[in-house]
Structures are given as structure tokens and as C-alpha cells.
């Protein structure tokens, strides 16, 4: 079964350029998963011990506020990765609700399993950390731009 996931991993933008030798190792922590529309892939505050390589569908990162209803801060779709909390010390909890807007097909990676492999093979750990650093930076920049509220009325 893991062998069948290697092509999916190789084909996902997140692993582009990764030494193919690592794919079986990563595939050992991976499984195929599907979330129907309207469900939650994860909930704010729950332990974050996995991440998703989205192959299809759309996921909304939401936060609920009393009286305001859910507020979507970002949507993720094909080629995106949902979740990096599993990798970051002291942050192993979901920060947002992951609500499925359109049926999601994804590869789910087990965080504890991957952390173990990274600890055993720091080169793999570095490769993954590099990729998540880019992801986190992209998210941070997008968030800053959102905070600027560039379309709003000034003054």
C-alpha cells in the first residue's frame, strides 16, 4: 500500500525537487484520505498530529467568533499544504477549524511518525524544515498583507 502513495507524493508541489530516496520513507507515514464537503478536517485546539497534502477540493481555515459567525482567514486548494503545527515545538495544536468547502482528496501524513524519521535522519529533517519554512513565510506575508486591509477606506 505505501508504494502506491509515492507517485502522489512525488507529484505534489510541496515535495518538488526532493531526493526520491526519501519518498518511501515519507510514504511510510502517509495515507490517502477523503473529507466530504461540509465536514471539518480538523478543529481548533485539537492536537495537530498530521498534515494534509491537498490533491483536490477546497478547505477553509476558519475561526468562529461569538455574534460574528465563522470568519475564513484563508482557503487552501490543490497543491497546498494544510497544517504545519505538528512540526513546530510547543505548537502541536490546530490554530483554526479546517472546514471542507469542496470534497477534499488528500494525502495525510502522520506527524509523530515523520518527526521520528526526521530525528533519525537530520538531512530529511532539514529538507522538510526548509519546505515548511517557505510555507510559513508565505503564509506570514499573506497575513500581513491581509492585515494592511489595502482595499479599505483610508482615514
Amino acid at each position, binding site marked *: 500500500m505505501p508504494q502506491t502513495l509515492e507517485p502522489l507524493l512525488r507529484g505534489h508541489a510541496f515535495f518538488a525537487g526532493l531526493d526520491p530516496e526519501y519518498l518511501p520513507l515519507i510514504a511510510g507515514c502517509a495515507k490517502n484520505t477523503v473529507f466530504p464537503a461540509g465536514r471539518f478536517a480538523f478543529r481548533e485546539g485539537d492536537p495537530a498530529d498530521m498534515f494534509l497534502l491537498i490533491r483536490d477540493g477546497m478547505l477553509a481555515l476558519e475561526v468562529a467568533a461569538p455574534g460574528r459567525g465563522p*470568519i475564513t482567514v484563508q482557503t487552501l486548494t490543490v*497543491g497546498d499544504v494544510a497544517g504545519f503545527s505538528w512540526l513546530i515545538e510547543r505548537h502541536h495544536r490546530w490554530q483554526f477549524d479546517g472546514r471542507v468547502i469542496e470534497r477534499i482528496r488528500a494525502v495525510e501524513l502522520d506527524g509523530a511518525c515523520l518527526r521520528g524519521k526526521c530525528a533519525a535522519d537530520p538531512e530529511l529533517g532539514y529538507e522538510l524544515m526548509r519546505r515548511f519554512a517557505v510555507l510559513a513565510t508565505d503564509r506570514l506575508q499573506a497575513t500581513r498583507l491581509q492585515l494592511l486591509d489595502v482595499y479599505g477606506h483610508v482615514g
Partner: protein
Amino acid sequence: MWADTEPWRLAAARRESADTVTLGLEPPAPFVFDPGQFNMLYAAGIGEVPISISGDPGQRTRILHTIRDVGAVTHALCATPPGTEIGVRGPYGSHWPLHTAEGGDLIIVAGGIGLPPLRPAIYQALRHRDRYQRLVLLYGARTPRDLLFTGELARWRGRFDLTVEVTVDVGDRDWRGNVGVVPDLIGRVTFEPGTATAFMVGPEIMMRFTVRALLERGVPEDRVFLSMERNMQCAAALCGHCQLGPFLLCRDGPVLSYRQLARWISLREI
């Protein structure tokens, strides 16, 4: 040249969003303009403002202007009842270089009230669809309620020869589309950067970030075009207010290439 033209007649006004209205104005004679150009609209006794033309360049007897209510003059224009005569001077300024874009992909990027000045270019590109490879429209707004031309966006989405990606900074309960910023859309769509041309209008910050995303993907500096905004009073390259470095935006702009703007656009208070 100041107000010696016959007035135009406001034939219809259409509310696009809470603060934005499209005026359909009838010129005294058929009116020809290039996509990206603007007119000076006069609210009687209050003042004049530059407003981009937002309609189809093939339509010469009803000229559309989409106006966001942000000040005294735009407020008066947005509240003008149909039938009223309005002073119009124009068209002024440079236009979207649609010919430059021919043969390659055309990426149109709009933020907020930036969509109306691009709409004439979209109409023109669709009219001559065979002259371009991929045609992509990326559009961002603050919230779903701020989106303009939603009916038309839905129709465009239904076309197979036009890719439309819409995103909002903040979604709401009913929004099922993208939430995120416009520059992030650049990485999500398929196009050929080497031959692509990009047209862009939006808040300056959004444009600076989006230009970076385009350049990182390999779109050449001289094929990225931006429409810029500064204080504009005469539209005749005389009054000096619309200076942006060596450019008088009413004459040399509003559309300029990023290659022309690169030195100036990231400077503060220029």
C-alpha cells in the same frame, strides 16, 4: 478645453456595492476611447475628478464609469439621478497595450476598485480572443460584499477560454470561494511567464507585492503594466499635481510598465 464641451446625459445608474456605482453616460456624439483611459467628470459646482472608463470600447453611445464614493465629488456623482446632465472631458491618458500582449498569455490582475479600469481590456481581449493564448483574470477584494460586477464574473467563469480566480481578504458565512491575497493567486494559475503580459490595477501595496510574485515567476519587467494614481486636476499635463517622478500620470500614464516605474514605486512619499 476646461468646460467647453456639450454636457453628457446620465442615462442609468447601477449600484455595484455599498459604496460603488456605475454611471451610464450618453455623450452628445459617439465617443471613442482606448481601454485604460479616463474621463474628467464634473459634479456641478463641486468639482471634477478623473474616472476610468469601465465599459466596452465597442459601445460608443453609452459610456460606463464606475465610481467609488470616497470624497465630496465622487459622493455627488454617485448620488446623481438619471436624466441629469454631467460635464465630461476626455478621454485622457495612456491605454492598456493590448497589442504588446498578443501572441502570449494575458494575465489581468485587479484589486478592489481596480477592476473597472481593466474591464474594457477584458472586453477587448474577449472580442479578439484568438490573438492571445491563455486569458486569466485574477481579482481580489476586501470581502465578498465588496466584489464588483458579480453577475459578469459568474458569466466569465462559465467560459472555457477565460480563467477567473476571485479571492477576498476575509470571507463570510456564505462565501465559498478563495480567501487570501491576490499575490498568492499568481502561484496558483497556469501560464507561460516568458511570453505572458500582465495588466494590473489595485492599491499600490497590492500591486507592489503582486509585481514581485510575477517577476519571481519569470514575467519580464517590461511586460508588466500598472495603472497608477496621483492627484489629478487638469488632465492636460499642465497643473503639475499628478507627478510621479518623471511621469505626469495624466499624460504619460495612468498605464505605465513596471520597467518605467521600478525606480520610483518602492520609494516612500514620492
